[in-house]
């Protein structure tokens, strides 16, 4: 099976990640609205929120900063998957090297390089008020991924230039 173009692995991954994005987006909205409106059970300083359709629940400490952390974390995950699905959307086109592919890869690289560490600092030290650096591996993984994508973006940019020159060869 081919990697790029219509009816390729990229097309399959686009539909897969876009479906997960929609599902996670709905879940994020439900959780955030439920936290905001108090749509959960509260007992002994802990909350328990039922997840409709799945007949499951999430639970944890009943604290505002925990609610904010979960909501922001889920929102970041939704944005991450949305941007990832957008990259696969450009990969499933007939023409691989396009300006939109370069733009979307660049945006995704920036999200990983800047967005993730920024989110870690905000959540870990400002919202949760931790004084340790546990879970530091998360932003490190994102930064590594961001660097790799940044190199991939540079390759795609060069590919786009070569493609443009080739298209203008008569």
């Amino acid at each position: 099976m081919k990697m790029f173009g219509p009816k390729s692995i990229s097309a399959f991954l686009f539909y897969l990640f876009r479906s997960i994005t929609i599902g996670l987006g709905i879940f994020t909205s439900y959780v955030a609205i439920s936290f905001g409106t108090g749509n959960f059970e509260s007992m002994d300083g802990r909350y328990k929120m039922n997840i409709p359709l799945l007949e499951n629940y999430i639970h944890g400490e009943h604290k505002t900063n925990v609610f904010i952390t979960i909501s922001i974390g889920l929102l970041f995950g939704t944005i991450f998957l949305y941007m990832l699905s957008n990259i696969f959307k450009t990969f499933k086109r007939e023409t691989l090297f396009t300006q939109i592919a370069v733009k979307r890869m660049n945006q995704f690289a920036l999200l990983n390089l800047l967005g993730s560490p920024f989110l870690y600092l905000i959540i870990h030290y400002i919202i949760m008020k931790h004084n340790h650096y546990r879970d530091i591996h998360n932003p490190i993984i994102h930064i590594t991924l961001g660097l790799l994508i940044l190199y991939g973006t540079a390759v795609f940019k060069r590919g786009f230039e070569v493609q443009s020159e080739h298209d203008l060869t008569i």
Partner: protein
Amino acid sequence: MGIVVNLDVVLAKRKMKSKELAEAIGITEANLSILKSGKAKAIRFSTLEAICKELECQPGDILEFRLKESLT
């Protein structure tokens, strides 16, 4: 430095239309227009050969080198 395409001049001398040349050498009118307007990045030897054959001219009649200053 710049390469100037004088295809219009040669076509006018031969009293030939762009459409006729495009059909004769087997490229689209749009591509011939890109070539005539100087927007093309490169020209294949095969295309140049076909143009020269059809217009009975030399590559130098179609392509000309001019310094940038003299282009304006």
